[in-house]
């Protein structure tokens, strides 16, 4: 066997089964379209090692979105290569709709094995399926599973060898008719009344109750992130840095001597004879403090809350409620999901724009998030710097960014050519997040952050110190001085900050700390840093997803609007 493709409708649990089969962790959530890129892992070992591929979800082999096109192409590819099999994963609570894809797959020249996932939930809501009869009809092996607990996975692995081509014959025009017949034969639904729980969950999607509930939820989300983030800082990270690490660094400082070059590089400046993790700017002081002491607590907080939201199934409902708002910027409600992800990091945000159907929507969404949505790392640093001024310092930054998001969106809706279709999405049922899986997902995201961020920040602090010592930042400052000082009202050293914003935005905000800026200057610098250009990671993924031409267009929009808005703020604040 060459490879195994996991194929199925969106949100049936393919990614969970993938993790179970391969031990490779991938992000799974409770909304359609979590997997927009395929993931690859393997099963078995040595000679018997087989690649397993988690294919993005698709409702049919007649694709309607970029993610679905990827899925269809991958299946065609596997058919051409021969020697591969498909594990077709169905949501047992939605057998009728899911069989549509299965029947299409059965006509393809590839062996398949069928999995009925969410078996426990189907039973729970009173659906019983005659697996043996369904096996007879379709002529392929069927394994019921509960992926989230691992039930049935062992059986599935043991029976992979039974995969075979379907023998079920039908006329394509009569497909739904055929499905209806199969359903009548194998499925019994115990009739039940609308439960209290269902009525309650329906309230979250009715406008008169849903909008107030959404406002309360968003308020709670914001406060939960702040509460967890600040709690972690006060209880864990601040004591660690101040109590444990600072004394070690002070000893180290004495050891290597305050005036040496290495002191400057590793520890930085002592502020009134002490290490100041915000301002000293050595690789081992500020370099470690920015990612671990200031940003990580908020990353943990954000992803805990986001993952809970994702797994609960609330996001698609929020998407429906916000559909109108998103239409004013040329998108539809589902664009809420990538926007939410972008608040954590723009990179997964831009990748998630694949759930949008057209290129126009993807361009607008990706540009808007690069221009007006600061990632959690940058937000945490902005909170760190402007937090002492309270709402007076923070509100202007985020209100300005929101207005830019809205105005730039409205302008792009008018100016960017192309189509924006309407929302059309499945609304999954609410599920209580499974705690173990949720924590695993949060851990994966934190690991990803540590891997992506820490080396860049350390390297950044290192280069900053070298460039300062060589006087290069001064030279750059002088060149950029007219723009930076006259237009933006910032000191000329801020030119260097803008340069390092390309490397890491959180680092760049951190570089503002030693400059002793006023509140007004901090507000302007925070806004301009968010807008003027994406960081290198976002830049790379934007380029890959939308191409050089769109990247240039987006970059022009960003640079022009950043300096325009920055100058305006300088005039009115």
């Amino acid at each position, binding site marked *: 066997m060459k490879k195994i493709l996991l194929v199925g409708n969106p949100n049936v649990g393919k990614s969970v089964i993938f993790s179970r089969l391969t031990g490779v962790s991938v992000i799974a959530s409770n909304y359609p379209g979590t997997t927009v890129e395929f993931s690859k892992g393997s099963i078995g070992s040595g000679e018997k090692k087989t690649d397993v591929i988690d294919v993005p979800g698709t409702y049919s082999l007649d694709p309607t979105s970029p993610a679905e096109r990827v899925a269809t192409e991958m299946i065609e590819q596997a058919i051409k290569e021969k020697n591969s099999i498909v594990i077709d994963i169905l949501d047992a609570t939605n057998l009728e*709709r899911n069989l549509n894809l299965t029947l299409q797959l059965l006509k393809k020249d590839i062996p398949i094995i069928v999995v009925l996932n969410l078996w426990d939930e189907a039973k729970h809501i009173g659906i019983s399926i005659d697996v043996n009869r369904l096996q007879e009809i379709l002529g392929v092996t069927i394994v019921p599973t509960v992926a989230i607990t691992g039930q049935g996975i062992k059986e599935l692995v043991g029976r992979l060898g039974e995969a075979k081509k379907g023998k079920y014959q039908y006329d394509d025009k009569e497909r739904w008719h055929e499905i209806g017949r199969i359903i009548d034969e194998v499925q019994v639904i115990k009739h039940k009344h609308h439960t209290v729980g269902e009525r309650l969950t329906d309230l979250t999607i009715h406008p008169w109750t849903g909008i107030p509930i959404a406002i309360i939820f968003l308020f709670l989300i914001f406060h939960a992130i702040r509460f967890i983030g600040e709690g972690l800082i006060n209880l864990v990270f601040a004591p660690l840095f101040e109590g444990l690490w600072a004394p070690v660094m002070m000893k180290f400082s004495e050891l290597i001597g305050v005036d040496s070059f290495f002191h400057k590089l590793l520890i930085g400046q002592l502020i009134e004879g002490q290490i100041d993790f915000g301002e000293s700017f050595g690789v081992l002081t500020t370099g470690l403090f920015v990612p671990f002491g200031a940003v990580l607590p908020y990353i943990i907080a954000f992803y805990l809350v986001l993952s809970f939201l994702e797994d609960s199934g609330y996001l698609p409902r929020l998407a429906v409620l916000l*559909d109108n708002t998103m239409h004013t910027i040329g998108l539809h409600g589902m664009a809420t999901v990538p926007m939410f992800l972008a608040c954590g990091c723009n990179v997964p945000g831009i990748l998630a724009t694949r759930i949008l159907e057209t290129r126009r929507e993807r361009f607008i969404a990706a540009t808007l998030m690069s221009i007006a949505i600061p990632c959690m790392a940058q937000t945490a640093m902005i909170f760190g710097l402007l937090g002492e001024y309270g709402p007076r310092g923070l509100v202007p930054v985020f209100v300005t960014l929101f207005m830019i998001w809205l105005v730039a969106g409205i302008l792009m809706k008018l100016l960017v050519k192309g189509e924006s279709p309407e929302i059309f999405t499945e609304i999954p049922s609410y599920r209580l997040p499974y705690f173990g899986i949720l924590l695993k997902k949060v851990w994966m995201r934190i690991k990803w952050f540590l891997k992506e961020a820490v080396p860049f920040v350390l390297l950044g602090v290192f280069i900053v110190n070298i460039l300062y010592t060589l006087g290069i930042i001064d030279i750059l400052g002088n060149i950029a001085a007219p723009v930076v000082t006259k237009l933006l009202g910032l000191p000329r050293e801020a030119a260097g900050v803008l340069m390092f914003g390309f490397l890491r935005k959180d680092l760049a905000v951190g570089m503002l700390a030693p400059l002793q800026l006023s509140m007004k200057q901090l507000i302007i610098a925070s806004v301009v840093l968010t807008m003027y250009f994406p960081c290198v990671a976002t830049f790379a993924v934007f380029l890959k997803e939308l191409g050089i031409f769109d990247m240039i267009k987006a970059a022009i929009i960003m640079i022009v609007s950043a300096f325009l808005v920055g100058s305006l703020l300088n005039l009115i604040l």
Partner: protein
Amino acid sequence: MVCATSVKKRTVETKMANVDLTQMKAGQSGIVTEIHGGYGMTRKLDAMGIRLGVRITKVSGQIMRGPVVVRTGNTQVAIGFGMARRVVVEV
């Protein structure tokens, strides 16, 4: 009294009417009788199980021409206003 209201209700129910999804009331259900759309739209609806002859129930509509949420079988689907207007059901 109780009897009278239930009879009245029944007469309203038995009177068939063709309305589109945006005109349906939340909680109302009906059989899809017409879909006015091209190949792309029909195909998208079809993949979600919305096609002629299927019974669907409206879950909610939104203010200001927002999307309509309907339930068919055990699936809930959000459909944009413009598309929802082109799906006709008999209630």
